[in-house]
């Protein structure tokens, strides 16, 4: 996993609540045994007018030319609800997103993002609202500083705005260091074996 320290990027606003993982990556694109090839199908049903994904929907925000170089997705509440498919964060990452910002995330999706090094940031409704206002017209370039737990940007009138966010200690450590979490736990085999030796026989 790549290390995450700071990131500065253009924010694209997706003004829809309860975006589920079926919308992020529909089921017909899950029939792969590799971990690549999902980005082109990201938000398929909204992004394309046809079934085969050849005709982009000009109305969909990700297709607007001004957001072409985006790397930060701004979303509404309960982002990533529904199916546990990790293909959803894979698709977001492959499309080019490094950070997702929302007032709330579904639990499984949140964990999946952390596990692949895609940073999910929770901000308050009010902060999110301010970002939505600023992000119209591809007008928001945001700097995410993981070490200091904050995001910052400069408003049109020159004022500097900064919001702090919370992140679990270990989650932060894993993202900053690009930790192989399986390898990390495998270093604790003795502790796991000790636990197993005490389990009741039915378990």
């Amino acid at each position, binding site marked *: 996993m790549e290390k995450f320290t700071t990131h500065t990027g253009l924010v694209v606003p997706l003004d829809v609540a309860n975006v589920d993982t079926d*919308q992020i990556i529909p089921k017909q694109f899950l029939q792969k045994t590799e971990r690549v090839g999902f980005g082109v199908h990201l938000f398929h049903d909204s992004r394309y007018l046809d079934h085969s994904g050849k005709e982009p929907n000009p109305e969909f925000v990700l297709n607007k030319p001004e957001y072409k170089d985006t790397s930060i997705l701004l979303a509404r509440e309960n982002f990533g609800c529904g199916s546990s498919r990790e293909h959803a964060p894979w698709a977001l990452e492959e499309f080019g997103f490094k950070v997702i910002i929302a007032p709330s995330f579904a639990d499984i999706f949140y964990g999946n993002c952390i596990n692949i090094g895609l940073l999910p940031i929770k901000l308050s409704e009010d902060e999110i609202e301010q970002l939505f206002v600023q992000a119209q017209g591809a007008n928001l370039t945001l700097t995410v500083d993981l070490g200091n737990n904050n995001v910052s940007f400069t408003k049109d009138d020159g004022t500097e705005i900064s919001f702090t966010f919370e992140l679990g200690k270990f989650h932060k450590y894993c993202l900053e260091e690009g930790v192989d979490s399986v390898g990390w736990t495998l270093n604790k085999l003795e502790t796991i074996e000790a636990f197993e030796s005490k389990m009741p026989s039915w378990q």
Partner: protein
Amino acid sequence: MTTSTAPQTLYEKLWQTHLVEEKSGETPLLYVDRHLIHEVTSPQAFANLRFHNRPVRHPERTIATMDHNISTRSIKIDAAGEGAANQLRALEKNCKDFGIELFGMGHKNQGIAHVMGPELGLTLPGTIIVCGDSHTATHGAFGALAFGIGTSEVEHVFATQTLRQTKAKTMKIEVKGHVGQGISAKDIILAIIGETGSAGATGYVVEYCGEAIEALSMEERMTVCNMSIEFGAKAGLVAPDQTTFDYVEGREYAPKDDVWQQAVNDWKQLKSDDDAVFDSVITLEAKDIKAQVTWGTNPGQVISVDGIVPSPDDFNDPIEKESCVNALAYMDLEAGTKITDISVNKVFIGSCTNSRIEDLRAAASVVRSYTAKGQSVQSSIDAIVVPGSYRVKEQAESEGLDKAFTEAGFEWRLPGCSMCLGMNDDVLEEGDRCASTSNRNFEGRQGRGSRTHLVSPEMAAAAAIAGHFVDLNA
């Protein structure tokens, strides 16, 4: 089992008995007793194991089935198309290489993971069960802590038999009293989600309790717990009781003899202490719950069958208001329409929510009540019944349920996830309107541009014959 003086909730007891390590600065490490896998969310996890040259630490604790992708018309692997066949073959090879037991195409134990696990006795009270599928919450019906995981976590479980988890908050949902005649477990859980909203339990593990829950059979409890994720809960739990023990005893993988006795003794401790404190408590009166039908595009957008489609004006919250506007447009419904005036052209009876034998019996009994009057499935409607596993299928056929369905014009299919998510060819067309016993009515879930109404098996069966939703209890 640990004994502790401070009163604990059931969730806290399960957490405590599975805590391998809790260290400052690290997410707690929990032991995983049972891991269920399927073809769609496992291949990349196996690939990573190979890449790092790591074995599966306890292959005997993992069981594989084929369910998501498979055809419901043929047991041939190739029948579900090339992409599906690749994943199914990859699962076969991975299970063989890593020593994992697989219930492949046509195996007598094959079925949807969350139907197969409980019926084989793989699902036990007091365990932690995970699967790369969000409806793993189903197994919580046994007093097991069961939740869905992503593919990176599947790999973590393979390699270590543990998972890192942040402790959830606890929510108690008490359903007081008894439900009325003809009210199913599906109606109970839909009514709960209608109350909490589709994200009302995000960050929580929910424990269902109260007389109405205690009165449910194991299969009904599974239906309730299955949909915990549909209001955001990490997991759903029901404390195990005699109903649970009676169900588990004697099943193929369940403990036997002395070990069984020991297990039951331990399981009897698995309930929230009387004075345990929950972070949130919700109470419903069972007698107020009526048969439910979803009208929108998330499971929280649900109403009683004797109600009308709501209007955006009925919501104060601006986000809910806008969701209502969008849902009515997508569902092509007008506010004020009576639910019983909504016609459907597709019916799906199946999925890990409602494809067990009791579900099929309930649906078949409604079908028989219509056939007795000479009525059958409307010619404009395609209706399919998909049993959850080969065991359910066999049982249903031995009771003649398949005949009841086919003679009334339903198709009787082979087990699988089928139209619940439409990864195979059981998909809805654009504009189709479906009465479905599954668990998600998201936009496009059953096919792009298709419209899903979530209902009980009884309601789905009646809709297939009447052509529209029916208040069977009127």
